[in-house]
């Protein structure tokens, strides 16, 4: 009768198909063109990497009082070391550094608490979005509880960079949501106001907006009413990124199936209820990667405040390189700045990719 079917055993692939040699052959030397490319790439690596390592590590000087101490011919990290505090905190008085550190630690702890299941997310969000900024502001600026007042003009370095980035993104998110909703509205005036705003802002370079914020806003205010330059720049940055954010969020809103809107309507939810309870939570989740990308862009763009006379991380480094004691250390300064910006931006982009992947699997069954 029927013959029983036993699958033949799987054999390991022949040695020329797997393993290191096969890999090298397939990936590096599979054709004459590839051989050429491999050799060429190796040559480039040879040209770039060993000298870079030599410069950055082997021949580097790590401590010293001025450029004169750097005699080894390599990188003069002593420059970065001696200016390190300024790069981090700007001209913030060194006795008060703890205030910035404390605020930073608080933020990390608060955000970290999201991972803990037992914590009430609602309260935590309120703590982060409402309470924390107030606390942080008074910590930074001082003026109460006997904290010494620190002028915003002294704020600088990575501290200022981070501040601009975080405030910019947090403030632009709600504004972006409103603009995005407005742009999708079927009320013609609301829609055109939003479209005009979004498109105008996106059409011009950030530098012009910063310029407006730093020199023009006061001209538009009544005599005597005036506010801090940092605040004006923050407003400029926020409006700028809100326009970009609006477009990202609009993408998310468009991706929500029409059925969701209809189901919410059919249940009798009002417009704002259905937006806040049903649509936005889904839309925002969808566009987290886009939001992170906007943030990365914004974070890089905060360097432009240097052009309007604020000293963020890059600005502090740039002006430190003009110090007579350290002339000729520009490369080290930029390398250091590059390292910090790269770690943060690259880290965030990887994070957003991870989130994307996680959300991808989290939504599907079968």
């Amino acid at each position, binding site marked *: 009768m029927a013959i029983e079917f036993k699958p033949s055993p799987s054999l390991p692939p022949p040695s020329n198909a797997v393993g290191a040699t096969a890999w090298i052959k397939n990936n590096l030397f599979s054709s004459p063109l590839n051989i050429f490319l491999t050799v060429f790439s190796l040559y480039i690596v040879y040209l770039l990497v060993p000298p870079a390592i030599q410069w950055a590590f082997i021949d580097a000087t790590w401590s010293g009082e001025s450029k004169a101490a750097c005699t080894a011919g390599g990188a003069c990290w002593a420059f970065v070391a001696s200016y390190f505090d300024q790069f981090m905190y700007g001209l913030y008085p060194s006795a008060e550094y703890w205030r910035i550190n404390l605020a930073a630690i608080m933020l990390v702890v608060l955000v970290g608490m999201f991972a803990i299941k037992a914590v009430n997310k609602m309260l935590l969000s309120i703590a982060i979005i409402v309470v924390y900024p107030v606390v942080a502001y008074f910590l930074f600026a001082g003026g109460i509880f006997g904290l010494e007042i620190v002028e915003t003009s002294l704020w600088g370095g990575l501290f200022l960079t981070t501040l601009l980035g975080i405030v910019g993104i947090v403030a632009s998110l709600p504004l972006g949501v409103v603009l995005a909703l407005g742009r999708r509205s079927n009320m013609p005036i609301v829609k055109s106001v939003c479209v005009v705003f979004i498109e105008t802002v996106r*059409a011009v370079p950030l530098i012009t907006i910063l310029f407006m914020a730093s020199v023009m806003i006061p*001209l538009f205010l009544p005599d005597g009413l005036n506010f801090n330059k940092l605040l004006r720049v923050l407003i400029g940055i926020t409006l700028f990124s809100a326009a970009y954010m609006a477009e990202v969020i609009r993408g998310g809103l468009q991706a929500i199936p029409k059925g969701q809107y209809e189901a919410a309507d059919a249940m009798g939810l009002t417009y704002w209820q259905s937006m806040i309870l049903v649509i936005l939570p889904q839309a925002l989740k969808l566009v987290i990667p886009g939001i992170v990308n906007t943030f990365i862009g914004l974070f890089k763009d905060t360097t*432009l405040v240097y052009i309007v006379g604020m000293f963020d991380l890059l600005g502090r480094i740039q002006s430190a390189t003009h110090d007579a004691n350290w002339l000729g250390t520009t490369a080290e300064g*930029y390398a250091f700045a*590059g390292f910090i910006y790269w770690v943060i931006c690259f880290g965030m982009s990887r994070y957003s990719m991870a989130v994307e992947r996680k959300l991808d699997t989290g939504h599907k069954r079968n």
Partner: protein
Amino acid sequence: MSENIKSNTSFLNDAGNRALLFQAVLLVVVLAVGYYLFHNLQANLQTQGISTGFAFLNEPAGFPILIHLIEYTEAGTYGRAFLVALINTILISLMGIVLATIIGVIMGLARLSQNWLVARLATVYIETLRNLPLLLQMFFWYFAVLAALPHPRDSIVFGDFFLNKRGIYSPNPIFEDGFGVVIFGFLATIVASIGLVIWAKKRQTRTGLWFPAYWSSLGIIVIGTIAFYFLAGSPITFDLPEASRFNVKGGMVLVPEFVAVLVALSTYTGAFIAEIVRAGILSVSWGQTEAARSLGMRDSITQRLIVLPQALRVIIPPLTSQYLNLAKNSSLGAAIAYPELVAVVMGTTLNQTGQAIETIGLCMLVYGTLSLSISFFMNWYNKKMSLIER
């Protein structure tokens, strides 16, 4: 039955009325804020005695501009200076776009390369440049790399080319009388090669054989033009750069400000374009390649006729927005002494004349126009190229 109808429609409960009212309020608020700002502006300008208007554009500027493609002297007007700056912006944008595209395509393809090493190197390039602020990169090229170049007296000499801190010097061609002949020759070869392409198409329809018309045309144009050049008696002489007391003198010079902005813009944008190119190519499903292969098409033809045309549809829209970004980012040139729009108009002109509203407005207008025209192009292109579906 009509007694059932509850006519409790108070004004505010009517959806249509609500929308109208809300919009009216918004309009009023926007106008009021606009008017308020405008009013303050006027009041402020008046109390401070600042004159308004664009009359200043006709006044002599009095300041020099490092790079000017059109005739410009210190005696020129602010209007002229504005024009010079605008041209500088356009120049750097166009050159940046060309270079960035070349870099982007090469790096995008390299990242897709089967060669592991090449793909890795491209990845490193892309991930490094994309994640660093552009301003930092400009500073790096201008302040760090520049400082490493030799002093003019120790220039790196390469025939008639010089390289030093002050820039790259090359012979400057001067066109003499007979040059019209060369131009004529150039046009003639172009006409000839168009003819060749048409002939090749016809021949294919007849016999089926392909003729490498594009390569041959290129050959005809290059060789033909060179031939005409010598026939006309070499009507170009060169103004050669030579070392002098301070600088290398004469010749044509690419100043470091220009080079730094160009390199920074194009390598930075190139990294973004590389990702767009890669995504575009990956968006063409592998099935397309397999289908082409199973029809016996060679990989080179497959790429050219199947993959590239489809990838381009995906690539062009984000590519245009990168071009737009590049044009906007060229404004950062202001930070390293490249005399583009922001530097000349919002920098020097604003400072010499104090016309903040006018100068900033002018700049925004230029960028706005630029963006608008690019998005018009985009919409047109999308409409033209979108795949026809049912």
